[in-house]
C-alpha cells in the first residue's frame, strides 16, 4: 500500500502552479476527459465498446496539464491508455467514440481500436499497445524535429511499469546521447496492471530514481495537481524547445478504475483507494477554483456542456455505419493497397 503521504504528497493537491488565465480551460478539459471515460465505461458494460479499453480516470490532470501547455505542432506519443491524451490534443470526441465502437466514423475507421488512437492532424502520433515501444519512436521523432529545425517538442507518456522494460532503457540512453527535444512523462499510478509497481521494481521512483543512469535529472510532480503539471509542462517544453535536450518528469497519480475493462481492481487496499479518491484531481481542482473566486455555477455550466458533447459523440457513433469490410485490405502500403504481389 502506498498512501499519498508515503510519497511525500499533501493529502489534497496544493494548486500552487502558475496557471494564470488557463484556469477554466484546464477545468473544461479535465471535465471532458472525465465524462468521456465514464461514458466509455458504461458503453463497455452495455457491450457497445468491444475488445478492451484502458481508462485514465483519476489521471486527467496529467493529460490536461500537458496538452494545454503544448504548441499545436508539438507531438504526443501515448500508450493503450490513450483516450485522454488523444482528446486533450483536440481530437473530436465523436471520432474517438466512433473508434471505440468500431464505426466507419472512427478515427481510424475501426482499424486501430481503443489501444491505437492516432490523429496526425492533431499532433497525436499514436497510442502504442506494446509496453515501452513508443519511447524509442518518440526519440526518433524528436531527432527529426531537431534535425529539420522544426522547433517541435515531443512529449512521450508512459506508465511506471514501463520503466522496467528494455526499450525504456535504450530510448533514454539514446535520447540523452543525441540530446533531442523530448519530454518523457512517467505517469506513476502505482500499478502495472494488477501488481503494485513496488513489488517488482528495485527503486521507489521508477523514473526519477533512474534519471542519473542517463546523465539526466528528473522532476517529480503531483500528477493530481493540474496547476503543478501545467506549470512544469510549460517550463519543460520551453527548455526542450531551446535545445535543452531530454527532460524527465515523474507524475505521481492514481488509476481510479481497474487496469482495463475486465478488471475490478480488487487487489488494491481500500485505505489506499480512499486516500487517493480524496485527492481526486477534478473534484479537488473544482474546490480550488471555487475557493479562488470562480462560481460553482460556471463550473456546472462547463460540465453540462461537456455532458452534451459526450451525448452527441455517443449518438453520432451509434448511428454511424460499421466500416466497409473492404477496408481490411487497404492502406497497408502508401499506395492505399494491401497487395503483396507486384
Amino acid at each position, binding site marked *: 500500500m502506498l498512501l499519498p503521504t508515503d510519497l511525500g504528497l499533501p493529502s489534497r493537491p496544493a494548486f500552487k502552479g502558475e496557471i494564470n488565465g488557463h484556469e477554466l480551460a484546464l477545468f473544461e478539459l479535465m471535465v471532458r476527459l472525465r465524462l468521456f471515460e465514464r461514458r466509455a465505461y458504461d458503453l463497455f458494460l452495455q457491450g457497445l465498446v468491444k475488445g*478492451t479499453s484502458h481508462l485514465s480516470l483519476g489521471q486527467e490532470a496529467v493529460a490536461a496539464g500537458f496538452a494545454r501547455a503544448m504548441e499545436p505542432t508539438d507531438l504526443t506519443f501515448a500508450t493503450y491508455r490513450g483516450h485522454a491524451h488523444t482528446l486533450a490534443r483536440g481530437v473530436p470526441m465523436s471520432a474517438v467514440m466512433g473508434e471505440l465502437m468500431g464505426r466507419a466514423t472512427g478515427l481510424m475507421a475501426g482499424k*486501430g*481500436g481503443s*489501444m491505437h488512437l492516432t490523429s496526425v492532424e492533431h499532433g497525436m502520433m499514436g497510442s502504442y499497445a506494446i*509496453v515501452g515501444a513508443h519511447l524509442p519512436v518518440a526519440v526518433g521523432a524528436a531527432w527529426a524535429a531537431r534535425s529539420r529545425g522544426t522547433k517541435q517538442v515531443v512529449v512521450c507518456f508512459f506508465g511506471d511499469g514501463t520503466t522496467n*522494460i*528494455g526499450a525504456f532503457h535504450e530510448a533514454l540512453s539514446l535520447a540523452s546521447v543525441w540530446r533531442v527535444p523530448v519530454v518523457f512523462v512517467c505517469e506513476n499510478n502505482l500499478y*502495472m496492471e494488477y501488481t503494485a509497481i513496488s513489488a517488482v521494481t528495485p527503486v521507489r521512483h521508477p523514473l526519477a530514481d533512474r534519471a542519473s543512469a542517463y546523465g539526466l535529472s528528473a522532476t517529480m510532480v503531483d500528477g493530481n495537481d493540474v496547476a503543478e503539471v501545467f506549470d512544469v509542462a510549460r517550463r519543460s517544453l520551453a527548455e526542450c524547445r531551446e535545445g535543452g535536450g531530454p527532460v524527465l518528469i515523474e507524475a505521481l497519480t492514481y488509476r481510479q478504475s481497474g487496469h482495463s475493462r475486465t478488471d475490478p481492481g480488487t487487489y488494491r487496499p481500500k485505505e489506499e483507494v480512499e486516500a487517493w479518491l480524496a485527492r481526486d484531481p477534478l473534484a479537488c481542482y473544482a474546490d480550488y477554483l471555487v475557493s479562488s473566486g470562480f462560481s460553482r455555477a460556471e463550473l456546472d455550466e462547463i460540465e453540462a456542456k461537456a455532458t452534451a458533447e459526450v451525448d452527441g459523440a455517443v449518438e453520432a457513433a451509434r448511428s454511424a455505419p460499421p466500416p466497409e469490410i473492404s*477496408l*481490411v485490405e487497404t492502406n497497408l502500403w502508401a499506395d492505399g493497397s494491401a497487395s503483396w504481389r507486384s
Partner: protein
Amino acid sequence: MAILSYREAVARALAQEMSRDPKVVLIGEDVAAAGGVFKATAGLLDQFGSSRVLDTPIAEQAIIGAALGAAMNGLRPVAEIMFADFFAVCWDQIANQVAKTRYMTNGQISVPLVIRTANGGGVRFGAQHSQSVENWVMMIPGLKVVAPSTPRDVVGLTAAAIRDPDPVVVLEHKALYAVREEVPEGELVDELGKAVVRREGEDATVLSLGAMVPRSLAAADRLARERGIELTVVDVRSLVPLDVTTLLDSVRATGRLFTVEENPRLCGWGAEILSIVVEEAWDDLKAAPIRITTPHVPLPAADVLEDAALPSVERIVDTVEKHLAS
C-alpha cells in the same frame, strides 16, 4: 469427469505437474497474486507458494532469459508471455538463445522449459494483441510447438510440454479461454507430435488448429448437412514435432487438402504443410491443395473488420464448396 473451461484447464495442468515435480516453477507478469490476466493461473500461488510462482516486472527478455538460465541449472520453468504478440520483445531470447543453446553446445545443455502464451484473434484487441504466431515459432529450429483447441488438450499437451526435455511453446488461444467441456479426472498427459482426426469424411481433408478447429468442424457440419460434402477434419495440435504420418494418411485417402490458419498468409504453417504434402504425396493429390488464411494484413480491431479478416465458417464452407465443384 469435471467440466472445465479452457482457462481452468491451464491451471489444472500446471497444478498437476507442479504437484508431481518440485522443479516445476511458474513465472510471468501478474501470474502469481493476480492469477494471470486471463485468470489461467488462478490459485497456483496459494497452492505452491511464492518460491514457485513468481511475479516479474514487465520485462519479457528477463522472463525468458531467466527461464532459460533456470532450466540450465536444474529447474523446469514455465514462463508466461501474456500475449503472443509480446514474443517480439523477447524474440532474441526465444529464437536465438532458448532454441539454439542445445545445438550450439552440441548437447551439453538441455533446456526443459515451457513458454505459454495467449495466441490469436477474435476478441477485438487490435493489431498488437491478436496475432497468430504459429509460423514465428515453427520457423525457428529448436522450438517445439503445440496449440490445443480444447480444454482436454490444454491439460494433456501442457503436461506433455512440461515433461518434455526440450523447449516447448504452448500456444493457448485467447478466444477459447471461456470454452468448457468435460475433462477426465486424474493425471492426463499427451504425447507431443500427435494430430487428432476430429471428424472423418471422404471428400477432402481439412487441417487446422487452435480456434480454427471448431470453425472447421462447424463448416464440415454445414457442408455435410447442406451439400452432402463429407470432410475429414484433422486437428494438427503439434506443429513441431509434426505428425506427418497422420496428415499424409488422410490426404492420401481423400486426395484433397485444405488448410485453415489464422496466420497472415505469407509463410504460414499452411504453406509448410502444403509443401510437405506436395513433395511427399504428389501422386495421391486429385487437385491443388488450397490454403484458407487471414489475408496478409495486420488484424484490424473493429468487430466487422476482424470477422472479415479471420477465416470464418462461411469462408471455409464457400472455399471448400467452390473447389470441390470445379
